[in-house]
Each structure stands twice: as C-alpha cells, then as structure tokens.
C-alpha cells in the first residue's frame, strides 16, 4: 500500500506535485488514507468555517454548515446553492450560448457547434462568477442532476471515517 505525506497531497491539490510522485500515484495501488488528507488540504485552503464533507469540483463542495449543521452545496466563496440533495445548477446563474455569435466568442469559425444542434450552458456562482460547469446538450435538454453521492456508505463502509452530523 502506498502512502504520501500531507505536503505531497497538498501539492497535488495545487497542481504543483512533481511528476515522479504523480506517476507513482498513477501506477501504484491507491493510498487508502488519501481522502482524509485531501479534505485536510482543502479545508486549509478555503476561507469559510464550514466543514467540507465532499468536494464536488475545484470550487464546489458539500459542506456541513457551521451555523445550521445542515449539509449544503457551497462555493468556495461561501455562496450556498441549497440542500446537498438538490441539483445545485438550479440555484446557479446560467449563460446559454445558443447563437452563432455567442459560440464564436469561444471558438474560431467552423470549430464551434452549430446552435441548431447543440448549445453550451455555462453555470456560474451568483456571487463570485466561478464557472462550475459547462453543459453541452441539445436545446430542450433538462438541466442534468449529475451526481448524487451516497455519502453515508462512503464514510462508514468505504473509507471508515466517522460520518459528520447532519441537521435535518
């Protein structure tokens, strides 16, 4: 079983880990303690006091609210997107690239999708404007609720960590 220092995991999070160690991470069996080290590294980097329960993206987390004890989806600027079981995108701001002009803002002519076939939906944090996701569906496609983690099974059965309390 491999193991890595907290410093190495912190470098991984920052994208500054040396290639030799990164390659070892890729090629060796996984280090079971990574999740706890990862949470610690992330917690040290965010400005909020809420406890990170599960990272969802580079700026998005499920956290235990320090004030209510509820589990919510939260941006690293502190903006709350609602209950962790809900689709956070429904509480975001969206910009839809559904015209040729909007598409050619991001790709040269001929290299962008035809908006009669496909659009881009850019989901931003309403507070800090971090772009948390870009969907590229057809027009009409429902906003996708793309991840519903089984946090309880993960903590209790997989990584054997105490499950943080959750106020209802």
């Amino acid at each position: 079983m491999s193991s890595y220092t907290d410093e190495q995991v912190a470098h991984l999070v920052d994208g500054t880990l040396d290639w030799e160690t990164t390659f070892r991470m890729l090629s060796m069996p996984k280090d079971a303690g990574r999740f706890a080290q990862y949470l610690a590294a992330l917690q040290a980097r965010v400005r909020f006091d809420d406890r990170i329960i599960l990272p969802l993206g580079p700026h998005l987390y499920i956290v235990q609210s320090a004030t209510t004890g509820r589990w919510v989806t939260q941006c690293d600027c502190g903006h709350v997107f609602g209950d962790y079981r809900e689709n956070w995108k429904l509480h975001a701001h969206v910009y839809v690239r559904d015209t040729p002009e909007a598409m050619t803002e991001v790709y040269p002519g001929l290299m962008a999708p035809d908006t009669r076939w496909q659009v881009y939906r850019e989901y931003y944090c309403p507070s800090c404007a971090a772009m948390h996701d870009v969907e590229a569906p057809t027009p009409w496609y429902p906003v996708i609720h793309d991840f519903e983690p089984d946090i309880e099974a993960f903590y209790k059965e997989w990584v054997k960590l105490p499950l943080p309390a959750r106020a209802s």
Partner: protein
Amino acid sequence: MNMMSNKEVGFADLLGNGQTLNQFRDGVIERTQATGHYDGLRELAFRDSDPIGYEKLFSKLRGGLVHARETAKKIAASPIVEQEGELCFTLYNAVGDCVLTSTGIIIHVGTMGAAIKYMIENNWEANPGISPGDMFTNNDCSIGNVHPCDIATIVPIFWEGRLIGWVGGVTHVIDTGSVTPGSMSTGQTQRFGDGYMITCRKTGVNDQPLRDWLHESQRSVRTPKYWILDEKTRIAGCHMIRELVEEVIRADGIEAYQSFAREVIEEGRRGLQGRIKAMTLPGKYRKVSFVDVPYKHDDVQVSNAFAKLDSIMHSPCEMTIKADGKWRLDFEGASRWGWHTFNAHQVAFTSGIWVMMCQTLVPTQRINDGAYFATEFRLPKGTWCNPDDRRTGHAYAWHFLVSGWSALWRGLGQSYFSRGYLEEVNAGNANTSNWLQGGGINQDGEIHAVNSFEASSCGTGACAVKDGLNHAAAIWNPEGDMGDIEIWEMAEPLLYLGRNVKANSSGYGKYRGGCGFETLRMVWNAQDWTMFFMGNGFMNSDWGLMGGYPAATGYRFEAHRTGLDKRIASGDSLPLGGDLDPSEPDYERHIDATARVKRDKQCVTTEDCYANHDLYLNYLRGGPGFGDPIDREPKAVEADLNQAFLLPEYAQKVYGVVFTQDGKGVFTVDEERTAARRGQMRRERLARAMPTREWMKEERQRIVDKHASTQVQHMFATSFGLSEKFKKQFKDFWSLPESWDLREEDLGVPSYGASHRMDLSRLPDVSTVVQVEE
C-alpha cells in the same frame, strides 16, 4: 451396428463429460447467477494453495499472448495492423469466456467470445462440427462484432481429444468490400451494404484455410493483398498461442490449466469490484452525450430516400456505484438505431467498454470476462446500442461508441475528484475522427482502398492536475500511434503538404485538453480516385468537466481544380502546413482562384471524385478541458501561444490573458493586467447570465411552442418512442401539460423503421446470445 452414433445424433461429446457445449455453458451461467461468483467459485483453490504456480501460469500465458501479437503483426503489410497495432489475440475457456488477452484492440475480448457463444448456442458442434485443426472466421455485427472490418479467426484448442478452450485473433482490415471503399464507410445504410459478412464460418481444417474460402474472400474485397496477409497474421498468432497452451499443459498439467482458466475470471470479477471500492465513490452519476448524424446534405449520397434526414444520437447514462462495489450502467432513454452505419451491437458496447476501462479503472494485465461479470448493463432493446432489427448497418459503430463513452469518463472523473485521486481524473475522450477514407486506382496501378489511422492519435482529455496529451491516443487503442508519414505515403497516393498541431482544437480549461492535429494531403499519381469524410461537425461528442469546455468540433476542407500542378512547375507558392485559423483561410491564397473549395461543417460525406493535385484536410480532434479557464496559469497560456496551440484572440476572450508580442513574434503575458482582466470577466459573466430557473421558463415556452430544429425534435421523439420513463422525466422536469407530445411521424421527415422491425432472433433456427438486461 444399425444404431445411430453420436455423430449422427449430433452429439460430439467434445468435452468428454457427456454434456453438449450448450449444456455445459448453461451450468456455468447457473452457478454464476446462483452464487454471484464466476462458475460458483466461492474459493480460488488453485490460487490460494499454490499462489506461485498460479502466477507462473499467468505470466506464461499473458507473456505468450503479447509475444504472439508482437510477432504476428510483422506478417501484416497493412499499416493499420503493422503500424497502428490494430490487432489482438485472446484466450478463452471452453464456454467462450475470456481467460486472458494480449495488448491492442482489446474490445474484442467480448466480441470473439460472443462468436464462440453463438457457435455453442447454435450447435456448431453437430454441424459444421468442431474438430482439432479447425478455423472459424467471423465478422458478423449482428452477433456481437463491432464493425465488419474487424475480422476474427477463431481456433479451438483440444487436449487429449477434449475441447479445453479457444483462441481468437482479430485484425482491422483496410477494406471489407462494402458499398464504398475503406473499412468504415458511410455510403450504405444497412447491413446489406456493409461489406463481406461472415458468420462463424468454418474456413479451415487441419490448420489449412479452405480453398473455396480463399477464393471467395479475396475477391470480395478491394485489397486482397492486405487481406491475405492479415489472415496469415491472425492464423499465425492463433497457432502460436495454441502451441503455448499445449506447452503449458505439458509442463503444469491439465488440471492446473483448467483451474486457472476458471479462477482467473473470478479473480478478474473480484478485481474490478475491489478497484471500484478503492478508487471511486458510491452514488448515482448521470451523464449524457450526443453526436450529429447529418444525412440530409447533398454530399451524403445514399441509395435510400428514407435515410435522408438529419438526426442526433442520444446516449444518457445513469451509472450507479453500489455500496458493495458492484456497478450498474443504465442507458434508459437512448435514441433509436438508424439508417446509417453507426449502430452498435450490445456486445460491442459491453465488451468495448473495457478498452476504455483498462486506461483508467482497471489498468491491469488481467483483462478478461471477470469485469463483465462484475457489471450490470442495461441497454434497452431498440436503441442504437442494442438494435432490434436485423438490417442495421455497423461499419462505423465507433462513431457512436466513442461518443457514448465520453460521458462515462466524466462520471468516473467525478468520483476520482471527489475522493481525492486527482491524478486519475480525465475529462473525456476526443471524438476520434476525421476518418480519411476512399479508394480507386493507386500509385501502383492497382485497385485500392485507404483508411488513414491517423485518428489513433487524437488529443486526450484534461486531468485535474495537468493538461491532456497532445495528438497522442484514441480511446479504442491504448497503444495508438499516428504512423509515419513515409509509411502512409507508401500506402496511400496522397502526399503530405503539412502535419501540424491543430490550434484551438483542445477544450479550454484550468487544464486544457490535448491538442489534435491536422494533415494536408494532395492526391498524387492516382487514377479514378475517391475520398470522403467521416467525423463530428455540427456537435461535440465530448463535454468539458467541472467548468472546462468541450473540444472544438470538426469541419471539412477539400479543394478541387487547384492548379497545383502548374504552381509546382513554376515554383509558385503552395498551400503548406496547418489551416491555422479557419476564420481567416490561407490555403485558398495558394491555389487557383477558380478552384472549387468546400469549407463547411458537413463532416460526414460519401465517396466523391478527387483528381491528382486536389486537396483534403485531415483534422484529428482534440480532447476536452477541466476546470474554469480563467483559473489557468497565465504562463501556461503563454506557452500555448508561443507553440501556436492557441490563437491570440482566444487567449484574450476565453482565458482573459493580457499579453504583448515582440518583433520576433514571441508572446509574453502580463500577469498583473491578466488578474485585473479576469476580475472584469467575472463581472461580465454575471451581467450576461440569469438565474437558472428564470432561463428555464423561457426554455419551457420554446418546448411548448415546439421551437427547435427538426433533428433535435427527432432525437427526443425516438427516445420517447422507446422509453415512457424518459418521456415522463422530461415532461416532469419541464412541467409540461399532459397533452404535450412529440411523435416521430409528426415531424415531416422519413420514419421508415419507426414502427415495423424484425430482430435477428426471429429468423428460424437462430438462437441469439443476450448478455445484457434489455
């Protein structure tokens, strides 16, 4: 004396245990289903009692499989096999379950197994018989092959008169004699035009190919020289592996071998479950992907009016990772198969997925059917990934498969990211195209076909800690290689005028996708030459991940009556290198003003004529990006600018980078002004966006008004036609009135095949093998 022998009653007793192969296989299935362990193996007695002996057997067999592949491929003349490595050898146990496989196109772990199971289910042991020294050939897509150009040779392995297993070898041939040349052609809309189709036919006895087979097969394709050498490659590899098995049994005994051939599959099943628990996270992941099927265009010339419509492939996937480490992949809501060559058999899907998974979840040498037994697949009957009609075409099933699987990368990427294994995250795979194909009379004066495998080196998806690899790989071949220019120029009457990294082809992000590349080809010394395009153009099939953008879409460039012969003779300027910015075309400045040029997004075409000195741009796609582009290190953007991976306009617009360029053309970013510009971009984002629920009200009204292109409506209509569940979810999400409906027959486009279909299983005396929940 007057009683019928086993031969007359059709019972060959190949196993020497009084059971038919079918009865024996049924027992394996029953024991697997009853216990949850392959063949009821709760204990791995051989592995646990003699772990070193077990590992020695593994090493000998795996090493022999890889060695056979590396040696046999040197026989082939086709660059697809010899250069790109489009071949694979696989060892099976008696019931056709994969024991071990070589490197290469390991999608065929399951496809050749499906062919063996088809022979078992349909009593091949009685007729045509299965004997030592036999060879069977299969490329039938209706029983599991991916596409007809993957030709499999399957050889039974006997020991002391009993069947103990099989070995299969597959190569991707250059041409299958389909309606148009090239191995993955587009001109046909049904199986009947897909080319020479062989259904588990006995093509050899006593280790020799049968003469009728040789004569018939070689004249059924356009490229007999390559065909013959490909077959010799497959036969040589199979026979090497058969000898290896005999050698192993002589050294270690038949009991050890037989135990290994069962236990290693159960070990593979447990291995996948273990990897899932070690690397992922339980829960539900919902991802979706699409790809365009633009057949309405005049440059798609097919023989059926009913195929002339624009449509979209829809591949929604709900991936459920369970607390016990098992997983389920459910494609409820997928769109219907269509009149094109992109349909995929269920086995192409379930088997092909491992060629992807061995690059991420199971990067192990022990790829076998164990992973299949650890996975629940649900592919609804009638969808593009499990057609319910025996007429469907499959020549380029990969077009849909690579698109469908791009969604799975994102599901797994989410799980790796959330768990902290950032090094494993991959935003997705490129749409592995364009496919340059065509044929005619080549530079040697012979009837020829071409299929450039440069697509085996597209950009890869971005990781959560680094950029994707540039022009490096294809999802369908973990050992992909773009091939040497010199070899392609020998194989194709097409000279290279450029081979360059494709600027802006990768998906933007904190970490960008790998760049694709482009090659400009000039027809030279050919006669009656044709070519066509095959790829995505109007849509991306990949998406970015967590704020990253998808890769760029494809487009086509072709030029005729270029006048290049005269320009070369007079030393005039020539179109050389890359098509750097298609918004500002440059090639046209170096060909005759009267040249006929096609520059558009129609990336599926059919065979069109090309004269010598005509041009064709082969643009191989990039990979998708990861994370918000304005989080990208400004120095990384600077490096992209200085390598011409990125056009300056998009460094500003997408990455918010402020830079200067010196007299030598070197770019330097200004980090302070970049930070300020990025702050401004955040304000611009919020100014142009609106709350999602507000936007949903507008979109809902467009749905109520049926305001969308016909191809979008057609996609939804075919999905609704197959899935009431998906339709209900759609209507519930948008709060549509009960009366709202969308039916294919109301769209004013051909709906041939929408209502009346006939599955292969309805043919007399045919038992199909079903390996998924339908």
